[in-house]
C-alpha cells in the first residue's frame, strides 16, 4: 500500500475510527460539579506526602550519583546469578561458614535483598526530593536528579525480572515505580508545574509513596 492511499485511509478514519456515541454531558457534569464544587476540602495538587508533618524537606540528593545505579545494577546481577544459577553452591556454603563454631555468625547477606533495600531507600529519597512548586520560585530539576531517576528506572526493570518480583506485592510496586520513574526521567531542567502534578497524581492514585515506605521499612527492619 502506498503512502497516498494510507494517508487517505487515515483521513477517512476521522469519521470512522472509534466514533463515540453522544456523551451524556449533563449527567457527567453532575458528578464533576458535586466532586469539585461541593467537595469539603480543596484538592491536593501536588506533593505525594502533602500534609505530612516533619522537618523541612531537603533538596535533591546529590549523593545519588549515577554510579550508585551502576553499582546497584552490578549487585543485582550478582544476586540474580546467585539466586538462579548456583543453588547447589549456596547449599554447600553453610558448613563452610560454621567452621569456626565459637565465633558469632554474621547475619546472612543476600546481595539481591541488599540491592533491593538500597534501591528502595534511594527511590524513597528521590521521590521525596522531586522539585516542588513554591511561590515565586522557578522549578528546576538538575541533570543529576534526572540521571538518578534514569538509573533507578533501569534498576527497577532489572528487579522486575528478578526473584525480588516473585512476591505480587513487590511486583505491583515495581510496576508502579517504573511508571513514575519513567515520567521523572523525562523531566526537563525547568519542568512545568503540570508535569509535576501528573507525576504526583500517578503516585497518589496508586499510593506509591506509602507502599514504598512500608516495603523499604520492612527491608530495613530485617537488617538489609
Amino acid at each position, binding site marked *: 500500500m502506498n503512502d497516498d492511499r494510507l494517508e487517505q485511509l*487515515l483521513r477517512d478514519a476521522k469519521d470512522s475510527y472509534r466514533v463515540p456515541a453522544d456523551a451524556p454531558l449533563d449527567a457527567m457534569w453532575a458528578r464533576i460539579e458535586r466532586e469539585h464544587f461541593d467537595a469539603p476540602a480543596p484538592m491536593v495538587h501536588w506533593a505525594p506526602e502533602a500534609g505530612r508533618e516533619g522537618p523541612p524537606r531537603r533538596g535533591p540528593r546529590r549523593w545519588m550519583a549515577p554510579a550508585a545505579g551502576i553499582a546497584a545494577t552490578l549487585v543485582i546481577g550478582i544476586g540474580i546469578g546467585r539466586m538462579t544459577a548456583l543453588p547447589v553452591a549456596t547449599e554447600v556454603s553453610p558448613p563452610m561458614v560454621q567452621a569456626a563454631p565459637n565465633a558469632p555468625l554474621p547475619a546472612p547477606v543476600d546481595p539481591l535483598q541488599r540491592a533491593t533495600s538500597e534501591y528502595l531507600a534511594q527511590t524513597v529519597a528521590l521521590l521525596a526530593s522531586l522539585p516542588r512548586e513554591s511561590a515565586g520560585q522557578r522549578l528546576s530539576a538538575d541533570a543529576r536528579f534526572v540521571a538518578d531517576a534514569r538509573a533507578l528506572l533501569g534498576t527497577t526493570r532489572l528487579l522486575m525480572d528478578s526473584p525480588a518480583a516473585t512476591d505480587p506485592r513487590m511486583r505491583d510496586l515495581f510496576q508502579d515505580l517504573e511508571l513514575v520513574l519513567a515520567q521523572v526521567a523525562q523531566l526537563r531542567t525547568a519542568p512545568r508545574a503540570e508535569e509535576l502534578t501528573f507525576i504526583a497524581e500517578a503516585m497518589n492514585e496508586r499510593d506509591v509513596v506509602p507502599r514504598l515506605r512500608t516495603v523499604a521499612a520492612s527491608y530495613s527492619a530485617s537488617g538489609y
Partner: protein
Amino acid sequence: MSNSANQMTTPAIALQAPDAGPPEWTLITQSIAGDRSAARALYDRHARRVHRVVFRICGDEELASDLVQDVFIRAFGQLKNFRGDSAFTTWLHRIAVTTALNQMRKVKRIRNHEEALGDEDVHAAPSREADPDLKSRLHAAIDGLPEGLRLTVVLHDVEGYTHGEIGEMLGIAEGTSKARLFEARARLRVALADFA
C-alpha cells in the same frame, strides 16, 4: 477567536458567533474564582472533544464517560496552576491523555495478572478472512499497534493534533512524535499490504 476579538467590549462580543461565548481566559479566571456557570461553559466548550479523544484511546463508552469526569475534576482542581504556557486545549487534553493512559495501564495490568497474556495481544488484529473490509482492517491494525505508536496515530492522523501538541500531551519531544508516526505508518502499510 482572535486576540482582537478577546479585547472587544461587551456589545462587540454580542456580534460573535452564538457559540463563541466569552473568551476562554475569562471563563478560566471565573472558574478559578468558583463560578459554576463559567466552569460549566468551559466544560461545554471542551467536553465533547475530550470525550472523543478519551474514547478513541480506551474504546469503551462507559469507561470514557467516567474518565471524562475524572479529567474535568482534575482540570478544575488544577486550573489555578494553568499559566497559559500552552493552549488551554492542549493542557486539558494532556490531562485527558494522561488520565486515560493511566487507567488503561491499570486495566492492562489487571488483565495481565488474570490472564498472564502479553500486552500486545490485547488488540490483536483479526485475520483477513474474518474481516475482509479495508476500513475494518485499518481500525484493527491501528488497535494492534503498540500503545505509544497507536496514540501518536490517533492524536495526529485521526484527531489532527500537531507534533508539537502531541509532544506537550505525551511529555515527549516533537521529533519523537514524528518518529513514532513514521514507525506507526510503516507498520500500518505492512499490515495492509495485501490491499495494495
